[in-house]
């Protein structure tokens, strides 16, 4: 199960451009999110119940989770019906507050340029398109305590998300994260990750032909 952290150089094209290759990768991540939800949501509920037993608390909202898991099962089945044989269903994206905030910040920067009619109220729905593909979150961390890792401070939070979550791959076309435009090994505090560009990911870790058969509009199927 590859865990990935996707930065804005990939997540913005994936969410904004319905016909691109990055959108197709996004659908693979949406499928992975549904698979992960079906297989691992129970872990979170167990954690809640154990904590309630230890500390005497009360657990609520479980019915909704069970409904979500059932819905995830239906969404996953509907997507698999459409996707080409061999599409991986175990790629899982990791999210964090700095990752989501950086997406929103960049979207505000370039949004008006791409669509002069873009309004403030159009931003949250786009942010949600990123959030919902991230099946799991990195451990919370203090943004001010993020070590200087790259040449761009804004990229440090994204790389730190990947390191802290033991991600397998940060995926980025940003020159600060992948300086040689292929892949880059990052290490900090005995943790390490290999950041790859989107092209490297597709050519070396995914089946490009398979990805090419995916229709970007199928992302709605993942959501229901």
């Amino acid at each position, binding site marked *: *199960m590859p*865990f990935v952290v996707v930065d*804005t*150089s990939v997540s*913005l*094209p994936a969410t*904004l*451009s319905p016909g*691109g290759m*990055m959108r197709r990768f996004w659908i693979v991540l949406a499928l992975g999110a549904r698979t*992960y*939800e079906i297989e691992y*949501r129970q*872990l*979170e*509920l167990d*954690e*809640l119940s154990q*904590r309630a037993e230890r*500390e*005497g*608390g*009360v657990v*609520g*909202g*479980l*019915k*909704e*989770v069970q409904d*979500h898991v059932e*819905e995830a099962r239906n969404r996953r089945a509907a997507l698999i019906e459409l996707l080409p044989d061999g599409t991986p269903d175990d790629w899982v994206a990791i999210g964090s*507050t700095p990752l*989501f*905030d950086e997406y*929103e910040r*960049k979207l505000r920067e*370039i949004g008006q340029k*791409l669509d002069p009619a873009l309004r403030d109220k159009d931003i949250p*729905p*786009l*942010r*949600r*398109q990123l*959030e*919902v593909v*991230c*099946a*799991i*979150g*990195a*451990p*919370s961390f203090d943004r001010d305590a993020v070590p200087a890792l790259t040449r761009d401070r804004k990229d440090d939070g994204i790389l730190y998300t990947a390191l802290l*979550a*033991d*991600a*397998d791959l940060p995926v980025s*076309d940003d020159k600060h994260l992948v300086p040689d435009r292929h892949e880059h090994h990052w290490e900090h505090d005995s943790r390490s990750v290999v950041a790859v560009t989107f092209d490297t990911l597709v050519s070396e870790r995914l089946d490009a032909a398979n990805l090419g058969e995916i229709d970007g509009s199928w992302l*709605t199927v993942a*959501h*229901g």
Partner: protein
Amino acid sequence: MATTAARPQLLTVSEAATLLNVNERTIRRWIDAESIPYLELPGGSYRIPQGALIASLRGNYDLAAELREVDERNAELTEAQVQTALADK
């Protein structure tokens, strides 16, 4: 294979609101409506599982309709155009 990523994270109401960039009142409203899972601790504070919180967005918003609207607006927008806009910044 990664291990930390699979470990469940429990968030406070404030952390949950920050993660999704919504008001804390929104998180409390979802708790009251039992539309997200939560643990209420004896002191009255809450803990919310992060993954289930994100998954609950599908129940609390019509994400498919939101996506259709975005895609209709951006039907002609190419990946290269987005990348150029990003590179110009």
